[in-house]
């Protein structure tokens, strides 16, 4: 749905009352009260119309703010059921807050039903705080009212997202993102940096008996999961498919057969809905994940430039991100196994199940990380000359296997906890040391982590310690946004749109080795 915001007039009374009665069944205002509100010089009422259905009012909201008074009140706000979850309520609230500010108010108050946590969450995310409770305020239901307050800075200037003229309120497009590069079928929906849905269907269990991701098994699972996952994401975001403004999809890098399922689905979706399609880079998507907040509140701009360390079962990459949509440089990457892959292989050596990361983490908790000194790949001076920011985990994996076999051959028990802890220490030591070195070398006071291996507690801990010592700000998105997901792909698509990039057209394919410098595929 494309929404149009405008000032309400008395001609809107009937449409507003229809929504009022449907929304507030037991305590709706009378038409006479509402007419008085619309006519008053001290109020500011807005309505939202659905562009596709002219004259169809789908939401309204009102502010009481007498000129010169320091206190303003949100009088009412309602969105028709079909249009809920699309951000209309948030946009209306922003406009009313901006109007209150313009009229000179320094505080905005509202009352909300104690049994409406969704509305309370919205108000809190806008900065309102609960200051009082009015017992049994809402009659005849006898429900308490929470009184909430928002302070407005005296010199506040309206933010660009809440401009002065409500009928020109710009809305970020609603973007649906599809990710199928490995074993997770991910579909996410965002509006700008606001996360509305992040649904993941994983085929990990099917790979467990093979000890690693089997590309054909993953691709078959994507085909079965793609439509149900889209459906689930729409339900989670509480939006309709026709409300989607653009589609984004991972073009690469990743498993070719797996990527192709997502590409085919995304193209069909874009043509069926007649919407623009953005083909994007999976790795840059991991960086874009930091734009989002897992609780669905408005995210933040990325602090750029930044160094990004992406660690997963398929990738180990160190990036220099100067601009998310136009300037990403690959500083280094693994020359053999990905870090997550090394965890899986060492877990097998130790007789632990797949996936190895959490298993090693669990076993290592009881072990001594200094018990065995396993090699640190590509950290010797001769290696650093050529591979300063590259990684190698094949050597440590083999070293662990040799060490374990020697014990077994001697008939001695294998100290699984110590081996796990020592191996894990070797991997995270190299990862964090090189990432911090990249920050220092490039004068970059920021490090961003991404990828599924971020779930590793020791990696996060050591990264925190080393960043703190070096005066580097560490950013770690929520774990649900670190593992492969469609929301990060949607977020990157939304940034491309915001930056004015043209859509990708329909001729791109799946590129299993897409370089990270190709942020968008034409």
């Amino acid at each position, binding site marked *: 749905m494309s929404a149009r915001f405008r000032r309400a007039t008395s001609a809107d009374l009937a449409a507003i009352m229809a929504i009022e009665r449907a929304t507030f069944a037991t305590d709706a205002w009378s038409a006479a009260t509402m007419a008085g509100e619309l006519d008053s010089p001290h109020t500011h009422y807005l309505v939202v119309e659905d562009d596709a259905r002219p004259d169809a009012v789908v939401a309204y909201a009102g502010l009481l703010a007498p000129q010169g008074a320091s206190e303003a009140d949100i009088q009412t706000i309602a969105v028709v059921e079909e249009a809920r979850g699309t951000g209309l309520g948030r946009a209306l609230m922003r406009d009313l807050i901006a109007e209150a500010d313009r009229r000179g108010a320094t505080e905005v108050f509202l009352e909300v039903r104690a049994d409406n946590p969704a509305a309370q969450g919205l108000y809190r995310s806008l900065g309102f705080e609960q200051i009082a409770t009015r017992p049994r305020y809402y009659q005849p239901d006898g429900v308490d009212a929470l009184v909430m307050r928002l302070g407005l800075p005296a010199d506040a200037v309206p933010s660009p997202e809440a401009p002065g003229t409500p009928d020109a309120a710009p809305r970020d497009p609603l973007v649906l993102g599809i990710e199928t590069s490995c074993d997770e079928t991910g579909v996410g929906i965002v509006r700008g940096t606001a996360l509305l849905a992040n649904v993941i269907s994983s085929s990990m269990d099917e790979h467990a008996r093979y000890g690693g991701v089997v590309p054909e098994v993953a691709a078959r699972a994507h085909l079965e999961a793609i439509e149900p996952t889209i459906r689930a994401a729409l339900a989670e975001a509480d939006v309709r498919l026709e409300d989607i403004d653009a589609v984004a999809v991972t073009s690469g890098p990743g498993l070719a057969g797996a990527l192709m*399922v997502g590409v085919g689905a995304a193209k069909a979706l874009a043509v069926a809905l007649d919407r623009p399609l953005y083909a994007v880079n999976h790795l840059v998507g991991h960086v874009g994940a930091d734009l989002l907040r897992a609780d669905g509140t408005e995210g933040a701009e990325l602090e750029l430039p930044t160094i990004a360390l992406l660690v997963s079962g398929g990738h180990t990459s160190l990036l220099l991100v100067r601009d998310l949509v136009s300037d990403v440089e690959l500083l280094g990457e693994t020359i053999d196994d990905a870090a997550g892959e090394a965890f899986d292989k060492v877990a*097998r050596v130790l007789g632990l199940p797949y996936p190895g990361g959490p298993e090693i983490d669990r076993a290592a908790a009881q072990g001594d990380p200094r018990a065995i000194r396993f090699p640190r790949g590509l950290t010797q001076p001769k290696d650093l000359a050529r591979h300063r920011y590259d990684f190698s985990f094949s050597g440590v994996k083999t070293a662990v296997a040799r060490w374990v076999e020697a014990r077994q051959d001697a008939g001695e028990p294998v100290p699984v906890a110590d081996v796990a802890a020592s191996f894990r220490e070797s991997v995270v030591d190299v990862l964090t040391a090189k990432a911090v070195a990249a920050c220092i070398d490039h004068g970059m006071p920021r490090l961003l982590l991404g990828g599924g291996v971020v779930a590793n507690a020791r990696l996060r801990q050591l990264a925190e310690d080393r960043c703190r010592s070096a005066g580097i700000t560490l950013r770690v998105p929520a774990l649900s946004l670190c593992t492969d997901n469609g929301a990060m792909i949607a977020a990157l698509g939304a940034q491309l749109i915001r930056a004015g990039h043209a859509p990708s057209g329909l001729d791109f394919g799946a590129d299993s080795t897409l370089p990270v410098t190709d942020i968008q595929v034409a």
Partner: protein
Amino acid sequence: MLLAIDTSAGTSVAVVDVATGIAVERSVDDTMRHAEVIGALVRDCLQEAGVRPGDLDAVVAGMGPGPFTGLRVGIAAARVFAFARGVPLLPVISSAAIALDHYAGSGASAGGTGGPVLVVTDARRRELYWSIFDAPGATGVPALVDGPGLAVPADVPPGASGTTRIDAARVSAAALGRLAERMRAAGAAFPADQALYLRTPDVTPAKGPKRVTA
């Protein structure tokens, strides 16, 4: 009005409507570019037919058999297109479209004579997919009598005597669509909405780690 998509060989897309006589097909025979071409083929077919996505009342998917990687692209696209427009998905065995084309060419489509056909397509790895159909009866729908199956060339069943063998390299989405129209009109049951891989993934369960020391 149907949109038909088949990627069991090359990529073929069609808009078919028996009532109005609309039949637009766009195909690319390249068997390695399904993901690249699928979107533009659908868009171009709709444009040439003068049809908007909302005018379609069903989407037909060629379910194979066919090489996996390409096959999935068309099925994924058909499923998601049908979902996006809120219309049913009609799964059809791809080789049945080849049989239909054969009988149409031999004048047997309206319940004429014509003996059984053995449809053979490439399964890669020196193997073949095969299916045997009987001539269409009054419904105009070729009847599947055996298969679809997977075999090395020497083991492909020849069919009953009088069976004509067709080695096909392409599947026509227009034929697939016409077939679905006839099946719908005849009230025939559509096969399950399942990709016809006919092979399990080429992998064996892990037997534990390999030794690295001799």
